[in-house]
């Protein structure tokens, strides 16, 4: 049983009571909501005659259903408009801050909470979205919940939870140029499997993790859930504090010093005990691409699609299904696979450093003939920052579309979707059958730089070759510099948090 880890410390601090069913009631420090998984929770609250216990601890935005071409109201899709209007009504009725379209702060929920400084070390963070694990990058314990649990958090600011085991994932060495946090996490999931983390929290640690920027840590923790781990986290350190300082909802003045002291004390101690540990060598990881229908079916870009005899017997049936669905043959190199659509964005890879890395590849090149390529910034702040440094112009000049913020084609609840059997190179997080909006559409997951490389080559290609051509800017190599906190005059309603 784990002891002395950040997970244990945060768990103990937030424990409210032991429940009759045997689970633990855990206080939730930050509750994030959006339009898809909250309406039924508010309706249930109304049916039960309950109010929101701590409206100031819930923050809302709209992301899943928003169009990325025109966000004018009413939204063109009446169902989308109804969902957004319902969220607006629920937030107004219960006194919940909503960062809506055009507010300057709207965006994907897992992009805006960090950039506003809402997400902080030592918090428990819950949201009706599995990628809530993203917030673990700050040393928070963050996990996705269902709508009944959204109702519970609204009503009681707490949840019935069972404590997880803690696995330390220790990563030695350093990622090579052209290899990103996305490649690291795809490599980890490929190795441990998509259910390897069930019942566990993943603590990511070691020299390679310490060297990651906050945005890279978010990419890593974002996909912990794809490896079955409901939450993943990185211990808070100077990188964390430097990112948070000056953000609208972060502490300031004397409170800042007290916060840093408290946050620092939460990190797993040298004597922390883990349930188990797995080690990786970052230097051995290549740009990684999925070839199948789960995020665990990944290979290095210089490898071939595995043959059944190269796989664990338990994985062969699913591989057979994947060969057929993806129309990829075992033993064939993944590099050279022609693509139709290239998507850069999502809560995994829609932040400024992701766009910089992709722009560095796109700069001075052209999207190949017949390829539809588009970039969807993760938030209005990301869009503004990218435009301020001219990234939108770089993408447009290269033949990419530059869109408005939202979840977009990661899950295709808005008009952005694959058609028929189209194959997409995507910086998102899931390559499930039908995930990107066409029941027969196909997805290859990869880093944003790799997506940009696929867009200009018209096929899967090793981005390191393009970077070696010499005209790529240094920002395409990691670690990327950290974008600075946004300190604009955007509405400050959330700063009371």
């Amino acid at each position, binding site marked *: 049983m784990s002891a002395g880890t950040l997970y244990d410390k945060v768990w103990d601090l937030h424990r409210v009571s032991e429940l009759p*069913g045997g689970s633990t009631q855990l*206080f939730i420090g930050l509750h994030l909501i959006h339009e898809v998984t909250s309406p039924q929770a508010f309706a249930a609250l109304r049916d039960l005659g309950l109010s929101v216990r701590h409206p100031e601890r819930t923050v809302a935005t709209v992301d899943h259903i928003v169009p990325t071409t025109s966000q004018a109201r009413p939204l063109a899709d009446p169902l989308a408009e109804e969902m957004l209007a319902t969220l607006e009504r629920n937030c107004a009725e219960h006194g919940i801050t909503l960062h809506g379209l055009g507010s300057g702060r709207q965006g994907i929920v897992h992009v805006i909470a960090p950039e506003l400084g809402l997400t902080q070390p030592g918090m428990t963070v819950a949201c009706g979205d599995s990628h809530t694990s993203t917030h673990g990058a700050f040393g928070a314990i963050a996990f996705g919940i269902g*709508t*009944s649990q959204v109702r519970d958090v609204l009503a009681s600011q707490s949840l019935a939870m069972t404590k997880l085991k803690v696995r330390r994932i220790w990563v030695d060495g350093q990622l090579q140029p052209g290899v990103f946090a996305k490649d690291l996490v795809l490599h980890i999931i490929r190795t441990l499997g998509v259910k390897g983390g069930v019942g566990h929290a993943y603590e990511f640690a070691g020299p390679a993790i310490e060297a990651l920027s906050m945005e890279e840590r978010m990419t890593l923790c974002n996909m912990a859930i794809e490896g079955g781990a409901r939450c993943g986290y990185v211990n808070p350190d100077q990188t964390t504090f430097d990112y948070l300082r000056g953000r609208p909802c972060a502490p300031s003045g004397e409170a800042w010093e007290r916060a840093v002291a*408290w946050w620092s004390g939460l990190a797993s101690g040298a004597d922390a005990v883990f349930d188990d540990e797995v080690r990786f060598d970052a230097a051995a990881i290549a740009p990684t691409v999925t070839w199948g229908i789960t995020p665990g079916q990944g290979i290095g870009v210089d490898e071939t699609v595995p043959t059944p005899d190269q796989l664990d017997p338990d994985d062969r049936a699913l591989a057979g299904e994947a060969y057929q669905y993806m129309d990829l043959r075992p033993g064939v190199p993944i590099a050279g696979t022609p693509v139709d659509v290239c998507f850069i964005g999502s809560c995994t890879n829609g932040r400024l450093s992701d766009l910089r890395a992709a722009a560095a590849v796109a700069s001075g090149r052209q999207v190949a003939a017949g390829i539809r390529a588009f970039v969807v910034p993760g938030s209005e702040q990301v869009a503004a920052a990218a435009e301020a440094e001219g990234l939108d112009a770089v993408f447009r000049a290269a033949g990419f579309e530059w869109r408005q913020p939202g979840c977009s084609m990661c899950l295709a609840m808005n008009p952005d979707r694959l058609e028929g059997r189209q194959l997409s190179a995507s910086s998102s997080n899931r390559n499930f059958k039908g*995930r990107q909006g066409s029941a027969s559409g196909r997805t290859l997951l990869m880093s944003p730089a790799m997506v940009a490389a696929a867009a200009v080559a018209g096929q899967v290609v090793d981005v390191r070759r393009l970077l070696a051509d010499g005209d790529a800017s240094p920002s395409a190599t990691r670690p990327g510099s950290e974008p600075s906190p946004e300190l604009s005059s955007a509405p400050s309603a959330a700063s009371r948090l």
Partner: protein
Amino acid sequence: MSHQPLPAGPISAHRGRGLPLPGADIDTDRIIPARFLKCVTFENLATGVFADDRSERSGDHPFDRDEHQGASVLVVNRNFGCGSSREHAPQALMRWGIRALVGESFAEIFFGNCLALGLPCLTADPAHVAELQEAIAVDPGAELLVDLEAMEVVLESEFAGDNRWPVTLDPGPRRMLLTGHWDGTSQLLAHDAELSATAAVLPYLSGFR
């Protein structure tokens, strides 16, 4: 689609016909594709269950076969319900008529979402799941008894004879179902003083002032 009442109160057993759904890592996008999430109530989700898989198999999907209409015990393989946290997935299954699930393993958020609706997710050995799926295929009209007291699944078939397989469920969720405490809101609200005490010692709630 189902006219059975939704789960309520203590759940110690369920009796109904089985529905085998073979396959590993069946994710919630497949259980209910994202376009069906454009709704503000769960009421009409039954029609979207496995919509894309069903249309791909044009009538030959387990959820479409005549012999499984009215079935209520879903028998699945490993890591069922992985991916998105959407409660729409168990809601859609429940509104189609599913009242209990038996499988090799379940994804964590999906398991919790089912529990919050009063749908037990019981795990069994891979070999036992395969036997159970096979036995249901042989006699789809046979009743299954899912017994949370004895922790077993019993197939009452005149063809296969009586077959029983052991199942497991962690003690916490099992107790929650047996006692009817799976619908958690009232329990959480019962500890308001403790909640305030916990909040009082979290420095970030007051902005570290």
